């Protein structure tokens, strides 16, 4: 009898050995759990990209909704964004298209009929979505006019922005996203949110223009990011003014008229 048991043990061990099962790890039964791997809490999602969400469960079988009996160890994941149910998923990875701003993503394990487990199994993360880059220090420079330039009455101010996306104001305040304030001679002139050059028409004299990056609430960034250029306006600079002979013709006409009158007078005398 003992030898029979020994034989069965040997056979079992042999089968396990060749199948690689000796290294396996059979988990003890425990309650379902959920863990969000991606995104990390307070992550900044740049370039308006969809938010990739990756999670793992344990002791829970993910099944498509409506495909099986309700069981506390099987079902799907209900996805809530900012408190509202957005979708239901039965895979470990999915994407969420979110508008710019701060959002809370909550994942909850639910049974096939949509009922939450008891006790509730859920986890949430906060993310900040921006149309700008997720990282990087914003910058701005003026490419025209150059410092010290002499310009005509009207011209366009051209600029370059880096690590910052211009969007119309009034949106949620998020990282690396906002618009431009144009300040001429210390006074607010215009706000720009479309990357187009800024037209200025100024009187003769010395002037300066400052372009300042601001957030969606019109507040300067911290630290301030701005660029200035000083220049002088001379009306008609670069223009060729031709000689006007009208005045000379007028003088000549007067002289000719005088000569004619004088000539006629002398003729009568003669």
């Amino acid at each position, binding site marked *: 009898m003992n*030898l029979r048991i020994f034989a069965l043990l*040997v056979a079992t061990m042999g089968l396990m050995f060749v199948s690689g099962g000796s*290294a396996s790890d059979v*988990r003890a039964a425990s309650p379902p759990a959920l863990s969000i791997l991606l995104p990390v809490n307070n992550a900044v999602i740049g370039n308006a990209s969809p938010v990739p969400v990756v999670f793992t469960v344990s002791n829970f079988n993910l099944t498509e909704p409506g495909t099986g009996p309700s069981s506390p160890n099987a079902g799907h994941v209900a996805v809530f964004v900012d408190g509202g149910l957005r979708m239901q998923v039965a895979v470990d990875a999915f994407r969420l298209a979110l508008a710019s701003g701060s959002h809370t993503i909550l994942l909850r394990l639910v049974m096939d009929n949509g009922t939450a487990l008891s006790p509730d199994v859920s986890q949430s993360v906060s993310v900040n979505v921006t149309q*700008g880059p997720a990282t990087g220090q914003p910058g701005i420079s003026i490419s025209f006019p150059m410092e010290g330039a002499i310009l005509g009455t009207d011209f366009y101010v051209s600029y370059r922005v880096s690590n910052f996306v211009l969007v119309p104001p009034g949106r949620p305040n998020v990282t690396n996203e906002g618009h431009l304030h144009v300040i001429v001679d210390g006074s607010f002139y215009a706000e720009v949110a479309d990357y187009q050059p800024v037209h200025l028409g100024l009187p003769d004299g010395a002037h300066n223009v400052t372009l300042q990056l601001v957030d969606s609430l019109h507040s300067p960034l911290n630290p301030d990011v701005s660029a200035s250029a000083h220049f002088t306006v001379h009306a008609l600079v670069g223009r060729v003014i031709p000689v006007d002979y009208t005045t000379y013709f007028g003088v000549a006409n007067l002289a000719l008229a005088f000569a004619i009158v004088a000539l006629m007078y002398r003729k009568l005398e003669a």
Partner: protein
Amino acid sequence: MVRARAPTGTTVTPHRRATAVALLLLLGVVGLSIANPSVAAAGPTLAISSPADGTVVGNGTPVVVDFVVSNFVLVQPGRVGEVVGPTEGHVDVFVDGGYTWMATQVEPIVLPLSSGSHTIRLQLVDDVGNALSPDVNTSVRVVTTQGPAGGVPTIRIVSPVPAQVTGHDVYVSVEISNFTFVDAHGQPNAPNEGHVELFLAGVLRQDLSRYDTGFMVDLPDGNNTITARLVNNDHTPLSPDVFATVTIFVKGSSVSVLYETLSGGVAVLLAAILVVLIFRRRKALARVMKERRETP
């Protein structure tokens, strides 16, 4: 317990027979494994079948990664009754070194990537996320762009035309091909995407990041050379340089032609009158002098 009798008359107890069968089974299985080394040595493999290394993915489309695995089963991690082993698990996806995605089935992985060069790495991991030993991974490099994946960019100035006589303000219209305009906000360079810069006499005047008409104002009188150049997102010229040039003539300021013409005309008329008067006076003087000489 029923005992069997051996044909030879030798008594064989059942437990001895079971032991012998078990040992034979064990030896047989082990022997089979040894006799077929390919089965024993075949470990999990992972390969990316698409895209090919260095592929340019154009038009802002997501990158679709197709992959194949062998000797490895992709399963949902964390399922009930899970048994962690070296031959099953899932695929972790990394983009530029950052964890990006998890694949639990052999199906295309869709990755929306921003413009630029990216390295996509796939790695087989077991059910609890540990890399296999030895590590099984593969990677591919792709370049994504909002522009077309192929083709040579070109640019042509449609308006103004060469030698055109214009005023001091002029619209500049360009026509481009195989190139897509994007707002330059510091993003990486990518093939066939960027913006256009307008130069006047070699001096940068405007960055245009939209497919729109440029407007250059207050141009100086005389000949003006306008250059439109395609540039990368970091404002550097393409390689090779792609630009177009046109020279126009800005007509100088003019005075009132009407007044100048009228004044000139009157002057000519008065001068003619004066000449006639002088001529007639000289003739009259000559006639008077002749009459005086003939008069005794």
